[in-house]
């Protein structure tokens, strides 16, 4: 298992070298979106309208942070379960999205879209939200403020810790890891 430091946005070469099980520290800009924001983004695409965030080479983090307390850039901010975004993810991947961060496995349609578009799915540790928030240095709402915790935020991250859960060649840490320890 390799360990990488990557800076956003990601290119095809960055994604191709990542194998399921590798650990990665991400630095740069990432965007947040979960269920409600995804629905709005995909509806806009269906109507042929412009999105409020860029997708080309970008990473979307599935998170609805807790409210920002005084003196901190963001509240606790761990990943939410990714399968709920499976119905929307392929449309975003087809528009240039290069990475997603969440927890739990993705379905076959997302895997196909990842292969087709050379994209990667990262997992962060669910429930390690206070720890993860330490690698977020700035947060700004850029769309859908009415959604509260589900608004789209632009996060500035430094050495944000993730593992490659599913890679662009179909490698899957869940299948491989669980098989190894089943008895």
């Amino acid at each position, binding site marked *: 298992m390799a360990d990488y430091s990557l800076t956003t946005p990601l290119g095809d070469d960055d994604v191709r070298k990542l194998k399921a099980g590798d650990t990665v520290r991400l630095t740069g800009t990432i965007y947040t979106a979960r269920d409600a924001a995804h629905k709005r983004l995909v509806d806009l695409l269906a109507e042929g309208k412009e999105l409020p965030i860029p997708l080309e080479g970008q990473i979307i983090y599935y998170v609805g942070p*807790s409210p920002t307390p005084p003196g901190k850039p963001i*509240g*606790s901010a761990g990943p*939410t379960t990714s399968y709920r975004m499976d119905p929307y993810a392929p449309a975003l991947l087809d528009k240039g999205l290069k990475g997603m961060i969440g927890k739990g496995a993705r379905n076959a349609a997302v895997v196909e879209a990842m292969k087709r578009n050379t994209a990667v799915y990262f*997992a962060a540790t669910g429930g*390690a939200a206070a720890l993860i928030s330490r690698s977020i240095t700035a947060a700004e709402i850029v769309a859908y403020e009415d959604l509260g*915790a589900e608004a789209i935020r632009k996060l500035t991250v430094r050495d944000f810790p993730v593992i490659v859960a599913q890679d662009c060649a179909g490698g899957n840490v*869940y299948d491989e890891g*669980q098989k*190894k320890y089943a008895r």
Partner: protein
Amino acid sequence: MREIEASKITQEVARLCMEANFELEDDVQKALEKAHETEESPAGKEVLRQIIENSGIARSERMPMCQDTGLTVIFAEVGQDAHITGGGFEEAINEGVRRGYTEGYLRKSVLADPLRGGNTGDNTPAVIHTNIVPGDKLKLWVVPKGGGSENMSRIAMMKPADGIEGIKKFVVENVKAASGNPCPPIIVGIGIGGTFERCAQLAKKALLREVGSKHPDELYAALEKELLEMVNDLGVGPMGLGGRTTALAVHIEAAPRHIASFPVSMNLNCHAARHKYIEL
């Protein structure tokens, strides 16, 4: 007749909502530390290390350990000789939730209507389960329940012929299917018996038990032990990355059932298993 001020209930619920989210209970913390020592998978061990470090940060900085600070579930045992004064019982609880979630910078995750949406803005209403019991005390369990593990919970109206083997199959298949989604290592609450709705409630109540405690009835204690081994043999591991720690505990609650019915439910809790108790 003993009087309990509604404002006291509000004050304690507010405090417990915050404490539950900031301070992982000792039983869960100890179970996680033990799992960290014994876990064979390097990825699983690293996840457990992060979870333990996270718990320390949440405690010292008074930040929620998980951004999903849950829908607040309250179990209440009200002594029949207690008299609540100065306001309604459920309103007192909801006011406590409102204050705790606002003052503690906890996430508000409740939609006013399941179809129309609309965040209530203060995490109310709580889900309140009340029992009237002998005595003059008020006992409250405050359980902020996250959505990720709740979504992987299941209920089955099985046939009596399915028996204990049917229960084992149901639990093992559903924990396997849940995989990394409910944030393992999980706590598995099992309800056996009752009616449809009682059975679901039993599984939730099973999550209140101290992690590592044994069912007082040997039959159920043995089944808990066997199910814990079966679930851990799935190899799901911490966050589903593979490993020997899928669950920290399996807890069963049982109730009488109809001769024709054999309801079995499974309510999962994530490793951020939050529950606080107070007696007023």
